């Protein structure tokens, strides 16, 4: 057992979850908007003052300072905004990793300022920031957003390869259910701040997402809820 966290909660947020992730696992986190995917990533990354038990290889990462933390876990937020016009190489180094991290074909981008990059290029730099310290636990929020189809595939394969180096695991929040099915060892479905199901085959998935599988495609089984019409 690698990660074990129980009764995680965040002050002021509707969120309560327990989760275990084994070494070598790539776990995808799915759920409708506002279901608590980001909250779970935040809690595990020690963001926003989480309470609850947490052990990563026997250590509570919240007790680790800035020098050791990036080797244990890194977190990629969903936002791709960077306030200062830093050079890509410096940005990756700030994350505690080595800027020579080659896997994302950044050579051409490393000496450019991040504000001059396209959104997709900037995404790759920010992903490299999270991957380069080679952490035990990767926490990625929508890592494939803004990436072109080829890079979406290459990124998921890269994460898989990184985990394959041993002693590592990844938890990835993602909206693309097909990508989740294709790449994940395990899928965790969240709803209203709690873990509601594992896998996308159970009967409650249609209820949670309001969509169901129709051959190769997903189709809506109910109209999006109109909050004004609810009792």
């Amino acid at each position, binding site marked *: 057992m690698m990660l074990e966290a129980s009764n995680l909660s965040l002050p002021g947020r509707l969120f309560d979850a327990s989760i275990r992730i084994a070494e070598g696992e790539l776990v995808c986190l799915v759920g409708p908007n506002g279901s608590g995917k980001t909250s779970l990533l935040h809690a595990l990354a020690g*963001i*926003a003052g989480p309470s609850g038990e947490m052990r990563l290889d026997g250590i509570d990462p919240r007790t680790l300072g800035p020098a050791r933390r990036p080797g244990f876990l890194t*977190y990629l937020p969903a936002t791709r905004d960077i*306030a*200062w016009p*830093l*050079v890509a190489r*410096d940005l990756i180094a700030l*994350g505690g990793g080595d800027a020579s991290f080659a896997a994302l074909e950044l050579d051409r981008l490393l000496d450019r300022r991040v504000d001059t990059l396209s959104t997709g290029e900037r995404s790759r730099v920010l992903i490299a*920031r999270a991957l380069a310290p080679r952490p035990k636990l990767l926490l990625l929020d929508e890592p494939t957003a803004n990436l072109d189809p080829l890079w979406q595939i290459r990124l998921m394969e890269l994460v898989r390869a990184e985990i394959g180096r041993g002693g590592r695991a990844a938890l990835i929040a993602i909206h693309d259910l097909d990508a989740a099915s294709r790449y994940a060892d395990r899928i965790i479905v969240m709803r209203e701040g709690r873990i509601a199901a594992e896998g996308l085959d159970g009967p409650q998935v249609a209820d949670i997402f309001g969509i169901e599988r129709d051959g190769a495609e997903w189709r809506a089984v109910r109209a999006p809820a109109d909050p004004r019409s609810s009792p």
Partner: protein
Amino acid sequence: MRAALLLVALALAFAASILLPFGLLGSLDPDILWSLIVELRLPRALLALAYGATLGASGAAVQALFANPLASPDLTGTTSGAALGAVVTAYLFGFAAPVALSIGSVVGALGALALLLALAGPKAETATLLLSGLAISALAGALTTLALALAPSPFAFYDAYDWLMGSLIDRSLEQAAFAGLPAVLAIALLLRLGPALDRLSLGEEVAQSLGHDVTRLRLWVICLTALGVGACVAICGAIGFVGLVAPIFARRLTRGHPGRAILPAALVGALLLLVADLAVRLAPLGRTLPIGVVTALIGAPFFLWLVAHMRWRLAS
């Protein structure tokens, strides 16, 4: 290379600040020359050095904290808050000792910064930040005037005028120490926050995930800025724009790193204020201009350029 040039320029400006205008010095009796340098010029040069460095370092730290290059102690109301604190201490409570003024000033600066954080939020949009700063400055300015109007001394306005516009003139070495020692302490401690502030540029959440306590970081920056700026305002009054301009130049030396820019910003700030003071001294006007007027005359157009430049960049 550029850092070395900066240090050389700073040393030259400090030497010039002691020696210029030179004409008078040669004709003086050595004893008088010595007391002129130690009692008049040295405190003035040291104050310019300390105040400028404080404004530069505080500006860099506050800009890094708010993730906004337009944050600075003067535009966000910190200096106005400090001035209000000093005026209330001196004219309403009647404590004129430097230490009382310093405490009043630091408390005023802290109040202004706390209000800014409450109004603008931790990661402020430019508009919110500047509007909140404007409101705090206006409020502190009005309260300062009110305090002077209510003061028992009929000369309060006249007394306070030169000080409010910012002045380094006729301060003693003791006064220089009252501004300089807290300033040096504040700068030294701000420098320790540099790495955390650099990582804050990855975003507040990422900084937290990297093990930084962002709430504590924010508290430290605010308290240290209030300490440094407050102590300097108590002795020298409010001097604007150095805290805005110095970090912007300094970040060119640190490849845009906002935290690493604290030290160069302190050096650039010290240089700017020494040069502004030399301009005050050497300007052929017959009367001495308040140094705050000189920094505003140079800084305000720069600020306008910056606002226009940022707007174009945002629009494109």
